């Protein structure tokens, strides 16, 4: 029996249909109802320091330009000329005073306003330029330097949408006295996978670490630490934060950011001093609970992820049900000396990105999962998401609902929210 679109996730979300990953009709509804409505990550404020700075990205499959306009405000415009649709910007980032469409050279400002129609002097009837600016993304808001946009003018304010997730974002993004900055352009690669799988992986699937990555991580102390102190937090349904809450007596050097797998001792004295000092300052500022938290992986519904230890922001851009363009940015403490930043680089690109030691294994697993989802005669064999079902509880110190590091409630809550969004779309 083929399930209806409103029926792809079981009531307790312990079962999710394979079609959630492969069905063209589902994908169309996802674009309308999820990517057309939700808050989607656009860029980091550090990438747009001056008026005229811009980056290009996507909201779902829709190309957008995110720019700091002449008035200093950050705006997002759909990258498609209002005359005949040609993209007005063909590069990935830069600094400009205007965008000139190649076809007939209509010229747009950094806030999307139509500045000039070269043909206008040759015709008689005036054209109302005010109505022909680039389509604006109606809502653009930031939290802790992270800029999000939504196509839904009525979407809840970003802070409310993030809810308890802010606590976990603060743990990293408010950790450094001088804030963080994104360095360079993102790594971008395409995979034959559904966009939800990379998201699900980083919402809280730390349980795959010792297994999929056994050839790299096998036997490391880190696994024991995760099993002993790890929590899968669901701050709000759809968002996730996998973290460790270390015992209060843990020494400063073991609870600081940068101390994964004893790696801190491999750093220069300068870098170690920087990390210790950063941790001390952070604990003064953010308090005793944050002092004990070491993050792992985060997710903001629907497709933003963050790896705490490896300092990388990622977005899973859908390209059809069976393709994803994965983007991955490297983040650093803005105030760190250059030599310290250089040393921290390997913590990111040694393990993550398209050439990363770990990510090569994840990328392959995601593609293989899509192949498995797409095979025939399997409609009656949904995926099992029931690990730890019913074992989650409220934690006295950590906002949201807590589960052990192998509890799959982060995914159950994600798919319940997803099913709700999809079903409403189907009904309309």
């Amino acid at each position: 029996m083929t399930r209806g679109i409103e029926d792809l996730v079981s009531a307790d979300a312990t079962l999710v249909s394979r079609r959630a990953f492969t069905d063209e009709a589902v994908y169309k509804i996802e674009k309308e109802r999820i990517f057309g409505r939700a808050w989607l990550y656009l860029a980091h404020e550090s990438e747009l320091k001056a008026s005229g700075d811009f980056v290009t990205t996507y909201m779902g499959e829709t190309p957008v330009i995110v720019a700091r306009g002449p008035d200093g405000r950050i705006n997002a415009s759909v990258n498609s000329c209002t005359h005949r649709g040609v993209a007005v910007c063909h590069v990935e980032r830069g600094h400009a005073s205007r965008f000139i469409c190649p076809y007939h050279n209509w010229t747009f400002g950094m806030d999307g306003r139509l500045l000039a129609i070269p043909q206008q002097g040759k015709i008689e009837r005036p054209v109302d330029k005010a109505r022909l600016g680039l389509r604006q993304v109606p809502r653009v808001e930031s939290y802790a330097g992270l800029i999000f946009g939504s196509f839904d003018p009525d979407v809840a304010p970003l802070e409310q949408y993030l809810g308890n997730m802010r606590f976990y974002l603060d743990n990293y993004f408010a950790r450094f006295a001088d804030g963080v900055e994104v360095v360079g352009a993102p790594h971008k690669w395409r995979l034959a996978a559904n966009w939800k799988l990379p998201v699900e992986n980083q919402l809280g699937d730390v349980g795959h670490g010792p297994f999929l990555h056994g050839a790299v991580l096998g036997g490391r102390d880190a696994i024991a630490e995760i099993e002993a102190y790890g929590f899968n937090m669901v701050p709000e349904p759809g968002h996730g934060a996998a973290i460790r809450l270390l015992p209060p007596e843990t020494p400063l050097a073991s609870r600081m950011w940068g101390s994964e797998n004893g790696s801190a001792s491999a750093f220069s004295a300068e870098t170690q001093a920087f990390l210790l000092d950063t941790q001390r300052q952070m604990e003064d500022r953010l308090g005793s609970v944050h002092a004990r938290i070491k993050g792992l992986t985060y997710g903001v519904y629907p497709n933003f992820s963050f790896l705490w230890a490896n300092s990388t922001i990622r977005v899973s851009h859908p390209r059809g049900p069976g393709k994803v363009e994965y983007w991955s940015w490297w983040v650093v403490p803005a105030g760190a000396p250059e030599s310290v930043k250089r040393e921290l680089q390997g913590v990111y690109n040694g393990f993550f990105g398209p050439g990363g030691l770990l990510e090569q294994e994840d990328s392959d697993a995601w593609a293989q999962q899509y192949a498995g989802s797409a095979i025939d005669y399997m409609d009656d064999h949904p995926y099992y998401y029931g690990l730890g079902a019913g074992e989650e509880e409220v934690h006295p110190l950590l906002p949201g609902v807590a589960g052990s590091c192998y509890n799959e409630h982060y995914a159950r809550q994600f798919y319940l929210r997803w099913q709700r969004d999809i079903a409403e779309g189907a009904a309309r």
Partner: protein
Amino acid sequence: MEQQHAIEQFYYREARMLDDRRFLAWLELLTEDVRYVIPTRHIRLGHLPARGGDEFHLVERELGGAEEAALREDRLPLLTIRAKRALAPNAWAENPPARTRRFITNVEIEDDDACAGEVRVLSNFMLSYSRHGADNHLYSGQRQDRLRRSEDGFRIAERRIVLDWNVVTAPTLALFF
């Protein structure tokens, strides 16, 4: 001429070693201080002050600088982990392994520094990658090498790989190019 021939032969042997998955033998071709880098490549605006000149669309400006996180930035320890890992039964991304074929062309000696015992060589590569049935991909790019002479032939002291992609459309860059 002789030098050119010797370097080409070195590259062909190296390519065959990698295609034959003799990764541990390949490690022997590296110097202790080897740098192995794949910078990012991005679509940027042309450099306006240089418009009309060859500098306007300089390839080098599309490549991520040292302060940016490269796609790969490996030294010997990481290259050794990669080589050994690829031969482990639980290296799931490489067991079963990809079937690869490397084509090395346009070998050009850029600079021969006899005093330092180093040669700078440019070459182009195509790498055909096939895995999981019909999952086939073609990589192309340039290699900018610094080769160091040793008693028993050349060693790779530096390899910088300039890919032709901004969005990587193959499933992995965790390969030896």
